[in-house]
């Protein structure tokens, strides 16, 4: 029944494009258009593996035509943050923006301009290259550092494997006999189109699937044979205990370790307690993790003996106080079991691949169609030492608010006066929202590129309206699968909205920036496609997708394993570094040369736990992509935004299912509906991130924004820690 052409009503044309939402997938869309208006959206109905869209992509029509879409440039007319704006012309908006940025640059120096930019849509033209180039040519700016989603995973991969391209394509899951989904919930977070479909096929093929997670997620419900609830932030302890079980039982693949790794002996010494007197026994881990010792023993034995086995490490446990250790420990286990570089195995590095790994195309958002230029503010500064470094002076993304509020007096390299915010709901998606609001109020100028009046946009002086990806051309790419997607304009931009690359080009003229653009949009997209080996780009633009035809799944490190003499790992030793001399040399407390369990802030031993006894996690909600889609009615009605609390924790607090409750700590308070459930570990609460911060006159956030509660302190290696925290919950009112 599938002819790949889709269903067409009279008078309609169908535009094939690829969904570029930051949901974790990249799916084919057949957009029906009549008289320049989108009437409905179909998805892939061609040959398998089809790239079928999820609920978010299917609801995109309501996003394009939302009554609250920003269609015209706006300027602030009330106090900053109050949300009162007036429509202005593009000329006025661009002149004002250019003028203010020039004034701030000339008065305080270019470093006083901060760029807060993320990847609103996953595109290669309309991504962060444009503003970085613009501001670089303008004289410079202060750039943040830190990867919001998976800094710890990337750092651990670089240290251990020398690269972040560590994942197999998803179709390889079907070859696994055992899949351990560790803090990994693709049913909500997608993590690659078809990831869940391949998991279902793996299960049908007889794979045993184990979920290690504080929540009985939809992934656990759908795929797992066993659910192992674990206390948040203690994953490393359980992984070390699994290593202990393997070492005690001589279950490790010693031949693999001898041939492909360095430093296992030191790791073994630590696991056995030879260095610190503490053997990392299952009983030791049970007391920390809440996982029974016998469960740890069984999982360790299974992982050591069932071959091949894929340890799929979600990135959520890495967004904690010592997230690097979790990823490093998982990599050590993958090596101990010899599951690296083989079909059905996994390198254990990071189950979220795509953006920086597991992807045979040389494409990631670090590569932009618009070429970056060196940032003059960073000129003359050395790179920080270490395998994953940046040029100073930069500010960690989670500390921008602190830097704005303290400036030079707080030890930062500059005072900060202006902020350019693009593709980024900064106030919602970064830790300590109340502090961010305070920081934004203190700036002299804030310009925001947005599609909606987000909590962040409310703090703008000037808002520049952005076209959605259904209104512009671009190139995107598959997540954990080998394909490139053509993002094709289905309709003209609504109102006066413009594509981000064009906004930057418009600004360049007003800011007297020379040489900003040398190519047309079409040329830039062609070049990007060509760079990725897609030559028939015109055909790709028509069908929407170019797939790499692979007869067998892609397996990371296959060459290194099959022919190590010719293919050393790109680490200093040429091997998988279970012991990292690079980290030993760095000497940063917390970045230990072998993986260790270090109790972070917000652990059971934190003195704050007396006051705020409940560890917090901040999960993904199926109906949002980070904070996007929050305002889409078709999605809102599917799932209320709630705090998950166990029956036992609710009972002792007199909370019933559906009650409004208050979740709070020293950083702030949110009001939110309670979901009393058997599906979360007692003693843990979950507030999904992405709700649109909306404080009342007393400063209580009525929207339930998780980041009101989270900490801006990052891990020793630079991981955001907003999947952790300590809170208390009480009935509201």
């Amino acid at each position, binding site marked *: 029944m599938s002819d790949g052409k889709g269903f067409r009503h009279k008078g309609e044309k169908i535009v094939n494009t690829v969904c570029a939402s930051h949901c974790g997938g990249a799916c084919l869309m057949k957009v029906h258009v009549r008289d320049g208006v989108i009437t409905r959206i179909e998805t892939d109905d061609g040959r398998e593996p089809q790239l079928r869209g999820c609920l978010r992509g299917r609801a995109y029509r309501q996003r394009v035509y939302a009554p609250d879409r920003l269609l015209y440039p706006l300027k602030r007319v009330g106090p900053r943050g109050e949300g009162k704006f007036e429509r202005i012309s593009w000329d006025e908006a661009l002149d004002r923006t250019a003028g203010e940025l020039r004034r701030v640059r000339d008065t305080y120096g270019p470093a006083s301009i901060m760029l807060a930019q993320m990847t609103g849509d996953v595109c290669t033209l309309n991504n962060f290259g444009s503003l970085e180039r613009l501001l670089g040519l303008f004289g410079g700016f202060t750039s943040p550092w830190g990867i919001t989603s998976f800094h710890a995973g990337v750092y651990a991969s670089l240290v251990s494997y020398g690269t972040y391209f560590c994942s197999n394509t998803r179709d390889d899951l079907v070859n696994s006999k055992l899949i351990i989904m560790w803090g990994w919930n693709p049913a909500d977070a997608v993590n690659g189109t078809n990831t869940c479909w391949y998991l279902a096929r793996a299960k049908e093929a007889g794979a045993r699937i184990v979920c290690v997670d504080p929540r009985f997620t*939809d992934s656990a*419900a759908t795929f797992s044979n066993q659910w192992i*609830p674990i206390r948040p932030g203690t994953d490393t302890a359980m992984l070390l205990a699994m290593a202990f079980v393997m070492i005690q039982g001589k279950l490790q693949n010693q031949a693999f370790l001898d041939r492909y790794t360095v430093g296992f002996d030191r790791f073994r010494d630590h696991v056995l307690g030879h260095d610190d007197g503490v053997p990392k026994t299952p009983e030791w881990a049970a007391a920390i993790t809440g996982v029974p010792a016998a469960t740890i023993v069984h999982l360790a034995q299974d992982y050591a003996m069932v071959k091949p086995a894929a340890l799929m490490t979600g990135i959520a446990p890495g967004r904690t106080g010592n997230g690097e250790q979790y990823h490093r420990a998982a990599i050590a286990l993958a090596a101990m079991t010899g599951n690296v570089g083989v079909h059905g195995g996994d390198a254990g590095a990071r189950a979220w691949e795509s953006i920086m790994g597991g992807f045979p195309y040389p494409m990631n958002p670090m590569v932009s169609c618009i070429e970056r230029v060196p940032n003059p503010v960073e000129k003359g500064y050395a790179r920080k030492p270490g395998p994953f470094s940046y040029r100073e002076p930069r500010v960690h993304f989670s500390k921008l608010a602190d830097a704005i509020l303290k400036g030079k007096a707080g030890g930062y390299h500059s005072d900060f006066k202006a902020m350019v915010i693009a593709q980024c709901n900064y106030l919602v998606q970064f830790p300590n929202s109340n502090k961010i609001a305070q920081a934004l109020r203190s700036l002299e100028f804030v310009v925001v590129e947005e599609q909606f009046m987000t909590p962040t946009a409310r703090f703008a002086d000037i808002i520049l309206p952005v076209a959605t990806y259904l209104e512009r051309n671009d190139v995107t790419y598959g997540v954990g699968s080998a394909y490139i997607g053509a993002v094709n304009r289905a309709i003209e931009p609504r109102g006066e909205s413009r594509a981000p690359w064009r906004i930057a080009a418009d600004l360049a003229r007003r800011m007297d920036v020379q040489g900003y653009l040398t190519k047309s949009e079409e040329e830039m997209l062609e070049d990007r496609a060509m760079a990725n080996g897609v030559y028939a780009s015109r055909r790709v633009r028509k069908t929407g997708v170019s797939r790499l035809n692979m007869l067998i799944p892609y397996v990371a490190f296959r060459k290194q394993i099959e022919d190590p003499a010719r293919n050393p790992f790109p680490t200093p030793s040429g091997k998988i570094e279970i012991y990292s001399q690079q980290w030993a040399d760095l000497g940063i407390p917390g970045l230990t040369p072998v993986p260790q369990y270090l109790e972070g802030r917000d652990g059971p031993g934190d003195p704050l736990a007396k006051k705020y006894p409940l560890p917090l996690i901040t999960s993904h909600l199926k109906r949002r992509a980070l904070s996007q889609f929050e305002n889409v009615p078709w999605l809102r*009605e599917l799932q209320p935004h709630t705090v998950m609390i166990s029956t036992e924790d609710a009972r002792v607090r007199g909370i019933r299912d559906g009650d409004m409750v208050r979740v709070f700590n020293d950083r702030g308070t949110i009001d939110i509906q309670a979901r009393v459930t058997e599906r979360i570990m007692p003693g843990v609460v979950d507030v999904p991130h992405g709700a649109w911060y909306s404080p009342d006159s007393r400063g209580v956030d009525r929207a339930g924004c998780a980041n009101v509660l989270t900490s801006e302190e990052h891990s020793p290696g630079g991981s955001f820690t907003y999947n952790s925290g300590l809170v208390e919950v009480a009935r509201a009112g």
Partner: protein
Amino acid sequence: MVACKDWHDVPAGPASWMRVTAIERGQYPHPFVAFMAGACYHCAQPVCLKACPVQAISKREEDGIVLVDRGLCLGRDQCDKCLKACPYKAPQFGAEKNPRMQKCDFCLDRWAEEKLPICVAGCPMRALDAGPLEEMEAKHGKTRHAVGFKYHERIAPAVLFKPKPENMPLPI
């Protein structure tokens, strides 16, 4: 659910031709969760049809698809007999005043062009299928029971399941 609302232009609100519900049972640390997708089962003996006082509901001879003529429907303020009759909550009503009944029409427009219903074509897990009952039985078996679903012989809903085993092994 969203694909259905987009295809049929059903606004957010109480009417959902396709509904997916989570069935949650058991206690920590052994919860049981299953998902049930239900639209209209286009029953062999549709009780809604019999209940309707104005013959607004019909079952097509050629393929058994049950349809509602919204022009004939009296509206829920006058009558909700179909809703009361249907054990599967297939009749749906919007938020407007005296809403007329609406429900899954098997994507008749797509069916006429030999296209599968939008829910089937859209399910990312390929968990749904649709077609003549005998064909479906040959393809997927004849199981008519699932957690959260009761098969009524007298109505004979035209639906099959590949049910999730209710007693999952959950050793901890």
